[in-house]
């Protein structure tokens, strides 16, 4: 195509100098493609960044995926079950106490065991599925413990085979001799093991317990001593359900009328602690079922109408003024779709499965979020157990089936409420916004409320702007309107240098130099800052009262040079006067010695009852000024100096003074540019990280006290993300924080940009 002449009229071949080399055209085409590809690619990458952040956060707001995995046919008289860690070889316990172990993959029988008890019969069965412990309550009031252990062996090819091993221990006499056991429980406390049986003593429930203490010998198993049996909860008139925490520290007895009685281990026996009726106001106050949540300090109650309540132990103020840990309602759960029949807790988090007449519902106790809602199998569920790592749960139904569901729920504790709502966490005295991502114990529930971080961000930004805006805006007005142009060429680069100061340097100076420096001279500092504005104004007034020949000495645009020594003098004076003012106004009695001292910090603590930290919001605000001032200054100065000259000249020609021109013509014209500058400064202050990390205590508190620190979204990410495990809730919660920061700054900056564009249009019209 390069050689063809566009004009058909020309018959001869075009002169060589008019032909374009095909290489040139090819290069042009290829470079065009490359640039298009690169340009579009980069633009897409920029948007991809936001997409990636959202993609990382998205799993936090997805519910649990629960799907039925298998159903194993077991004898219809099976009443309890258990399984190994991987769920390969579940076993069921039949009503007569015999144990049948099956292979989960094909239902084949692996092992069968029958108790040999002579004349005694098995009258009660309890299995603890995770530990492989089965307790058989016998007809004479004694209990036999059966342990099912799984032994793994590896053959030469490295294949693993697992076989169950049953060990039956000698029965232990617990209950009143002769009365058959109706139910049996077991729990392992820190010192001893507790075994509890329920019997029926002529229509009255009888709960009897023993403690088993194992003294570890030097080699092999220790000797187990059994304490004399003791009656517990003798004052309970009826016993529907007994909840025994796995730590055996307390006991909860649910009575027929819906009354719940709690008991605490007092070392000897269990003493009565508190009684309450959860569904006091309902038509039928009876508790249909109750379940202890992982962590052993919260109980979920459901009633026959499907109402749910969560009660927990937390410090409560008693009438005598003492604060004691007592049970109290912390949540009202969402109503179940049917009558409550059972509550089964997960073993590694605060979720529980509620069985509600044909429906199953997986709920997070803390936030009340429904993780999953699904169809229940046909038979009544006798027992449900979650796997230790929360990837499945298994249920035994009365029609002889062992159902299994697989669970995919990576972030059971997260929901909108977790991050943005007030949540009543276990052990807390009320609902609160709190961020606390880690602690020592496993049972600790991480708290991921972003609200305190937002609060800290806004607080830091507020103090930064409070300090920076007046300085930046007045400087912008002065530089753009009054300052002599030759000075302007110096001032603007200096401001740009200020913008380029690394924030880590600012943070270091704030935290390690400024904070300790101003700490003892706080009043001096306030005086020095407070004197500035009146002094400058005073200088101006004074100057305008001088006769004209004197005034002519100061050339317009040079005022600041004259102002400088005067202000320096005023600041020095105020700084020196600080201690005197401090002793005049802020003298308080030292709390330790009782001697009156002049100390603002102590005065602040005693007068307001608030804390005083040396790394506080004011220090942060001041130093963040270094980051905010130049950016606001530059943009505002641009907007002000680009105001069309005709407007200014017109105003001056009409006889307005230079200040009147600025105040009534220039500033109103450029106001959207100034607002835009403020917004961009706001955006900059929101995202500032290193200054906040280094110059505050980084505690996630929510108070407006100017003398305390804060934790901002950005500082939180910088401090915690290096330690967060990839993919975990903590990690994603930090990503959520980053996402919020991104969106917040992006929206603010876009608004500012739109304002500036409108301003430009306006200048064009003028």
């Amino acid at each position: 195509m390069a050689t063809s002449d566009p004009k058909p009229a020309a018959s001869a071949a075009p002169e060589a100098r008019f032909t374009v080399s095909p290489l040139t055209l090819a290069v042009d085409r290829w470079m065009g493609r490359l640039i298009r590809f690169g340009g579009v690619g980069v633009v897409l990458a920029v948007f991809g960044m936001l997409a990636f952040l959202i993609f990382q956060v998205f799993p936090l707001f997805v519910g649990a995926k629960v799907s039925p995995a298998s159903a194993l046919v077991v004898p219809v008289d099976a009443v309890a079950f258990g399984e190994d860690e991987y769920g390969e070889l579940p076993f069921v316990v039949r009503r007569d106490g015999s144990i049948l172990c099956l292979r989960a993959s094909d239902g084949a029988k692996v092992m069968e065991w029958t108790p040999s008890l002579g004349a005694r019969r098995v009258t009660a069965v309890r299995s603890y599925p995770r530990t492989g412990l089965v307790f058989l309550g016998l007809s004479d009031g004694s209990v036999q413990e059966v342990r099912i252990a799984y032994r793994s062996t590896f053959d030469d090819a490295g294949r693993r085979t697992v076989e169950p091993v049953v060990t039956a221990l000698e029965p232990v006499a617990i209950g009143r001799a002769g009365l058959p056991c109706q139910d049996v429980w077991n729990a392992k406390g820190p010192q001893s093991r507790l075994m509890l049986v329920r019997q029926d003593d002529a229509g009255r429930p009888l709960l009897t317990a023993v403690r088993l203490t194992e003294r570890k010998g030097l080699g092999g198993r220790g000797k187990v001593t059994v304490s004399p049996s003791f009656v517990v909860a003798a004052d309970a008139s009826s016993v529907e359900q007994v909840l025994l925490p796995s730590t055996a520290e307390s006991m909860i007895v649910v009575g027929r009328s819906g009354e719940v009685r709690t008991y605490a281990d007092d070392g000897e026996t269990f003493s009565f602690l508190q009684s309450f009726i959860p569904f006091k106001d309902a038509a039928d106050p009876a508790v249909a079922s109750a379940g202890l949540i992982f962590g052993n300090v919260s109980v979920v109650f459901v009633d026959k109408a499907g109402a749910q309540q969560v009660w927990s132990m937390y410090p409560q103020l008693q009438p005598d003024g003492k604060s004691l840990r007592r049970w109290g309602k912390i949540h009202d759960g969402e109503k179940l779709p049917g009558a409550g029949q059972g509550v089964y807790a997960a073993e590694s988090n605060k979720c529980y499965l509620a069985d509600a007449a044909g429906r199953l519902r997986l709920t997070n106790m803390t936030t009340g979020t429904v993780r999953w809602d699904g169809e229940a199998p046909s038979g009544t569920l006798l027992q449900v157990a979650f796997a230790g790592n929360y990837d499945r749960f298994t249920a035994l139904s009365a029609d002889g089936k062992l159902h299994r569901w697989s669970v995919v729920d990576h972030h059971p504790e997260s929901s909108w409420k977790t991050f943005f709502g007030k949540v009543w966490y276990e052990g807390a005295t009320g609902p609160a916004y709190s961020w606390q991502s880690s602690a020592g114990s496993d049972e600790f529930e991480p708290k991921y409320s972003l609200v305190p971080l937002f609060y800290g961000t806004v607080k830091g930004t507020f103090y930064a702007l409070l300090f920076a805006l007046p300085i930046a805006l007045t400087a912008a007005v002065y530089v753009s309107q009054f300052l002599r142009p030759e000075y302007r060429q110096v001032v603007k680069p200096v401001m740009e240098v200020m913008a380029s100061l690394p924030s880590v340097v600012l943070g270091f100076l704030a935290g390690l130099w400024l904070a300790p420096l101003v700490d003892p001279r706080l009043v001096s500092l306030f005086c020095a800052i407070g004197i500035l504005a009146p002094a400058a104004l005073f200088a101006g007034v004074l100057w305008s009262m001088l006769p004209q020949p004197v005034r002519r000495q100061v050339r317009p645009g040079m005022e600041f040079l004259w102002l400088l020594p005067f202000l320096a003098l005023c600041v020095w004076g105020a700084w020196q006067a600080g201690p005197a003012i401090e002793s005049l106004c802020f003298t308080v009695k030292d709390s330790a010695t009782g001697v009156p001292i002049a100390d603002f910090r102590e005065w602040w603590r005693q007068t307001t009852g608030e804390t005083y930290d040396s790394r506080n919001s004011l220090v942060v605000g001041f130093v963040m000024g270094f980051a905010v001032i130049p950016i606001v200054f530059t943009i505002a100065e641009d907007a002000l100096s680009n105001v069309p000259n005709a407007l200014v000249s017109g105003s001056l020609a009409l006889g307005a003074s230079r200040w009147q021109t600025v105040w009534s013509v220039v500033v109103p014209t450029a106001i959207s540019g100034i607002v835009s500058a403020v917004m961009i400064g706001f955006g900059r202050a929101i995202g500032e990280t290193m200054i906040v990390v280094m110059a505050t205590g980084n505690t996630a508190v929510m108070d407006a006290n100017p003398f305390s620190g804060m934790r901002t979204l950005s500082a939180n990410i910088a401090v915690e993300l290096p330690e967060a495990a990839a993919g975990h809730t903590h990690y994603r919660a930090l990503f959520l924080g980053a996402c919020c920061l991104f969106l917040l700054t992006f929206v603010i900056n876009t608004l500012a940009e739109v304002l500036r564009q409108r301003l430009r249009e306006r200048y064009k019209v003028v």
Partner: protein
Amino acid sequence: MSASSDSSTPRGEAWVWFSGLGLIIGLGMVVGLLALVLMNGATVFWAPPVPVAQVDDGRVLIGQLAQRRIRAGSPADQPRFERQYQVGLRELNGNSYLWVDEAKIKGETFPADILGLERVENGPAFVRPQSLRKSDGEVIPVTDPAFEAAFQAEVAAAAAVREKLVEITRHRIGDVNAAMDKARVALRRAEDLKLADEVAALQKEIAGLDGRFAALQDEAKQVVAGGAVASLVSQDAAGREVVVPLTQVIRAWFPNRLGTWGRVKLFGSRLGEFIFDEPREANTEGGLMPAIFGTLVMTVFMSLLVTPFGVITAIYLREYAQQGAGLRIVRISVNNLAGVPSIVFGVFGLGFFVYVLGGSIDQLLFADQLKYNNNTPVFGTGGLLWCSLTLALMTLPVVIVATEEALAAVPRGMREASLATGASKWQTIRDILLPASAPGILTGVILAMARGAGEVAPLMLVGVVKLAPTLPFDGTAPFLHMDRKFMHLGFHVYDLGFQSPDSDAARPMVFATTLLLIVLVVCLNLGAIWIRNRLRARFKGASF
């Protein structure tokens, strides 16, 4: 505000003065901060006279004045001051720094025999020398006129021994260790895959390396045994005897005897150590070479990445893309990316570059490495490459905006003239637009570099460490190790200032590092401003 007694005073003049206040504070802040950093940073290397202070309670201390501040709890109207002395001799005093109530200092004298020592371990020492015990048993008392010459000669000899030792223990043994680690991973792989030949070869190699290791250790022992073991016998302030082996001494000076030229020389030597040496004593002493080098390499890489992409995008936006509402949105978005907090880029870098990209690279290219080296990631963890990429993404808008502005500033006539003479679009861009906007692009790149060099928050997430055992650039192939973690000046400031166990000892170092960082960043910025001003001047006359 009408304050006119004289009718000719224009209204509102007082407010004009008032608005000058903002400018004064702003300028004062910049100048004050720079002066503060300059003063504190530059005096770190200066050796002032060292006093012997007599304290009320009978204590005598020898130390360099470090700080002076108001005593905590002293009444605000009658502040009492206290002084901090750097007394050194941490092994004896427990702490190198000591606060003394100023009111309790009876007097200070500056005896000429005070000797300052900078030591390899336990920080500096200020002592009164007694005698020099040479390796051959000869003892030269301090009163001997030959003492000083002999002492300095012995210090120099000991330094040579120490350097030899460092060469052996750190570099040569380090190389052997690195080779050993590599061979062990290869051996594990070979054993797993049952490659008998390779196993044998690798076992042989490891045996050989073991032999070399032992030989080097022997060599090190010989150096120690054969070298000078002269030591300095001296007394501390309390009169306790302090024996310092001279291999421990890096530098020795008589602070109260030095003339100005001597102090300048000492200043130069310390500054040289600061810039060219490796850190010692948990980064609180020694030099900053790895951090300077790391910052430099990272910044250069970042600019190599950001320049082509930024320029191509700007050319696309300005010259190729359809101008319209869509493009305006894109342009605003790109501009606004500059306002997105840097930590967000760090989060993105960690989530995408490190875990997604790095993790995939490891799976694809370093599967063996992962399998046989305890799942130690290569690229799936923070490193130089990811830091450069993250900062490149962060500074991309700076370059795009600068380039776009520069392109827009090229007069339309030049463009049209070029096209009219028959140049293709690309030729116009290459020969007219890019050369004309080169200063503008350079300004953008320099600003990006300044921002990148000073940024810390995102780097904390994607690969900066407080102490990197190796530089990202060394003699082993492939010479440039993009996967390595590195040290950075900004992070050094953060780490020393906030994570250092001995904050007093770290303080001078932080100020020095701060000064260096600020000088670097300010110079880059001033360079950019200078180029921009020249650019403006050039285009002033170029409008057609």
